[in-house]
């Protein structure tokens, strides 16, 4: 009878197991949970979906008694699971380039809130184009009707030239620069003729001979005469006390410094609308010192970022130009020099420039940050081999990236090579930031490792190697235990090749050849150095280097232009990544990151690191050495057998007893 009772209770325990999972602890319990069911459900939900269960979900699992494998699989099909993994990959890839893009606003078109309200660049380039940092164009004069308004009749010719013979806009008004002159207003006067013999706001009486240094300037929208003399309080202009009279000996046309000391100006001429020629070369315009020469306004095509304005918008005449080259010198307008060339402008629909507010810039940063996360998401979502995230050519663009690539927008702020032919990139409207269209990148693409986010976030080849080792191999470069730096007097410190230099070679013997896998990608940018454009050896760069011209007109920045040792001397004119590379290492450059991943796939290290990372993600701590010996090989083998299916790996780890304990 006692036996029957015991058997009956045991059978009941088996049958009623789900309900008793938390309370009774019969010997034959088959529940695996080391924590109460609800708590286990909560941790699974927080780890898998990033949220706790709802009350309905708690009740569902309480009725069911356990989370079964099919429940886990169901959770891993939820959008929240993919969102959680996107967060995981964003952290793994450190995908945030907000601090990696150099942007100083020099290419941003801002609104001048007066007159015709033209768009214009107001930053550093204004010094070259107009004579003063921050100076805009004349917002009150239309460029092609430049004689309709005469701001300073006494400084201007009877008939102004609005443009030169190549249609490059010329100044339509002029002011004296506050950088060199002290200008004070005359109150209550209509023009400079009336100011002769009058006292300005500083108590200075303007003689007639200084008429040419009277400047009609805008105070708000109104013109007001100002008396401008070299600023005696500024060191640069302090000695400009001698006057130079015109041929009729009636008006002063310049001030000179009879005894200039270091850094002082020797002469300041009166300002006119005439431009100087830099180096005497026609087409290389320069603004005379002490003058602010402004061009006028034109109506031009709406900038690409303005998707609401129909028709044309007012823009400063220099910025409104669309040339590809300077018509006088044939110098390129498609490089960063366009901002300082009066004949270039912002290009078609202002594609070389950027919006004055930061909305679009921030949208680009967000989109580039999201791109590698989208790649990883697509691999996991499609149950592909997890390491496709490192090798796939698949990528995605939203409207921001689509139009940036297709329209070649802001090419100087964003030094990014289009991932494939511009026309092959999906056409998504600019303001559609939430639609991501899939496309296939060129052969050089290798998963997340060649995305602009990765290349900008890790700007050098060495940092790219370092992060790859850290994130995907779980290895860190650090000095040998107990290592002591060699004495500074040691001759080995003079070795330029870090892969050989004492004290450095411990890490760099690995870092340097590995970095060569990114050798065809620029540093501090996201450009692909196409072999057709950037051959292994550029004869012109070599010739420049041999002749001592180490800049070679700024076109050899990716090449070895200086030699510091024998290897360097033999490498002049070589693409920089080839410097110090052995014949055995050169295939790394050609193979790119994809070749590196393929090699590591053969070692099994990628699998083990993925297991470690997911273990850490789910258990909140890294594996101990004993756990590695117990679990790592088994889990990595299982991961490999599952075709590197990340969901299956997560399911394996969640199923471990370790995950079901909290201690």
């Amino acid at each position, binding site marked *: 009878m006692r036996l029957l009772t*015991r*058997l*009956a209770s*045991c*059978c009941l325990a*088996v049958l009623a197991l789900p309900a008793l999972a938390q309370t009774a602890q*019969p*010997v*034959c319990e*088959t*529940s*695996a949970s*080391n924590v*109460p069911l*609800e*708590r286990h*459900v*909560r*941790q699974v939900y*927080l780890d898998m*979906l*990033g*949220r*706790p*269960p*709802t*009350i309905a979900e*708690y009740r569902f699992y309480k009725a069911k008694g*356990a989370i*079964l*494998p099919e429940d886990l699989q169901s959770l891993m099909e939820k959008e929240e699971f993919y969102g959680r993994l996107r*967060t995981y990959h*964003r*952290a793994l*890839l*450190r*995908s*945030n*380039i*907000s*601090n*990696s893009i150099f942007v100083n606003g020099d290419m941003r078109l801002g609104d001048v809130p007066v007159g015709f309200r033209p768009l214009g660049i107001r930053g550093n380039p204004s010094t070259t184009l107009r004579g003063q940092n921050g100076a805009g164009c004349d917002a009150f004069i239309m460029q092609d009707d430049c004689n309709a308004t005469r701001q300073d009749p006494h400084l201007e010719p009877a008939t102004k030239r609005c443009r030169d013979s190549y249609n490059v806009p010329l100044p339509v008004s002029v002011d004296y620069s506050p950088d060199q002159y002290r200008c004070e207003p005359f109150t209550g006067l209509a023009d400079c003729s009336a100011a002769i013999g009058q006292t300005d706001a500083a108590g200075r009486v303007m003689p007639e001979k200084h008429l040419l240094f009277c400047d009609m300037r805008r105070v708000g929208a109104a013109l007001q005469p100002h008396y401008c003399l070299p600023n005696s309080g500024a060191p640069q202009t302090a000695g400009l006390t001698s006057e130079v009279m015109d041929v009729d000996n009636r008006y002063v046309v310049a001030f000179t410094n009879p005894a200039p000391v270091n850094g002082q100006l020797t002469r300041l001429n009166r300002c006119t609308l005439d431009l100087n020629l830099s180096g005497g070369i026609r087409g290389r315009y320069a603004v005379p010192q002490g003058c602010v020469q402004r061009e006028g306004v034109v109506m031009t095509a709406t900038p690409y970022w303005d998707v609401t304005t129909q028709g044309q918008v007012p823009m400063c005449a220099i910025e409104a130009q669309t040339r590809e080259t300077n018509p006088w010198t044939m110098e390129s307008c498609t490089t960063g020099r366009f901002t300082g060339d009066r004949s270039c402008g912002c290009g078609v629909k202002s594609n070389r420039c950027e919006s004055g507010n930061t909305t679009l810039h921030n949208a680009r940063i967000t989109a580039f940050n999201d791109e590698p996360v989208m790649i990883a998401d697509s691999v996991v979502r499609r149950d592909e081999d997890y390491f496709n995230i490192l090798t796939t050519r698949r990528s995605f663009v939203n409207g921001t990236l689509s139009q940036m690539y297709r329209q070649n927008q802001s090419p100087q702020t964003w030094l990014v090579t289009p991932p494939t032919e511009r026309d092959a990139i999906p056409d998504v409207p600019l303001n559609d930031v939430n639609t991501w269209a899939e496309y296939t990148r060129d052969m050089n693409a290798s998963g997340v490792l060649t995305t602009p986010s990765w290349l900008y976030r890790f700007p050098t080849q060495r940092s790219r190697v370092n992060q790859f080792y850290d994130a995907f191999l779980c290895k860190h470069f650090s000095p040998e235990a107990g290592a002591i730096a060699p004495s500074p007097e040691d001759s080995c410190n003079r070795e330029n090749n870090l892969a050989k230099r004492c004290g450095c070679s411990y890490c760099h013997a690995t870092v340097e050849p590995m970095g060569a896998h990114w050798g065809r990608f620029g540093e501090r940018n996201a450009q692909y150095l196409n072999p057709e454009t950037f051959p292994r050896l550029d004869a012109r760069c070599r010739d420049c280097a041999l002749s001592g011209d180490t800049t070679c007109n700024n076109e050899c920045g990716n090449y070895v232009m200086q030699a510091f040792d024998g290897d360097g001397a033999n490498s002049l004119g070589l693409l920089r990544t080839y410097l110090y590379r052995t014949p055995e290492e050169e295939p790394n450059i050609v193979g790119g990151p994809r070749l590196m991943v393929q090699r590591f796939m053969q070692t099994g290290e990628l699998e083990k690191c993925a297991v470690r990372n997911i273990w850490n993600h789910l*258990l*909140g*701590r890294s594996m*101990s050495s*004993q*756990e590695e010996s*117990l679990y790592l090989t*088994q*889990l990595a083998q299982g991961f490999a057998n599952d075709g590197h299916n990340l969901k299956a790996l997560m399911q*394996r780890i969640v*199923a471990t*007893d*370790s*995950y*079901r*304990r*909290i*201690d």
Partner: protein
Amino acid sequence: MKTTTSTLVLFAAVFALVSCSSKTVEKPAMEGTLETVDMGHHPPTVKLADPEQNQGHIGRKPRRISVAQLRESILTTTGRQWSQINALAATLGQADYALTVSESTEVNLVFAKFLEDGAREVCLATASADLNKPAPDRVLFPDVTITNRDFTMMSDDAIKANLSYLAIRFWGQAFSDAERDSWAGTFKTVAARAKTINRPEQAWGAMCIAFMTDPRFATY
């Protein structure tokens, strides 16, 4: 036939008992490891490590929820979002992966202070809204019968039942009887105070704050 079936059931039960019992005396297969619990519905994958060799940690490390998890937890448990959570995300530990490259899940006073602020905001708003909702739609007291918005009239059983419900909702953990009694006493005090100042939402709103600021809400 009936006898045969009974015999089979009995045999199976005896077999189960013997096999279950024998498991308790089975020796570890490897020195320095613990035997795993039979998983039943899925195969045991690994042995457990030796706690002594792992500083006592062989399971999950209890940890604070991340800011993203906090955001979702508040929304899931109270049905509304804390208006300041995005503004305070960096302070609460969220990494931006540019300047801060790892999420901080440190449990510290700054986190506790701001979480309390958030709890006050969302709990009182939820409790206020609940007062005007039919029972099934309420978040904090879906099964409570409200009489003149006076929660001092609730029976002990009703209070304890709702506290148990909230413990699962906020923590995923059941109360012990002693703790539940203690919380019920607290609720009675709070409900009386809420009635005195005529702020009925503060009764369960205050308990919501208590649940949300309890370490069990922010850790798992």
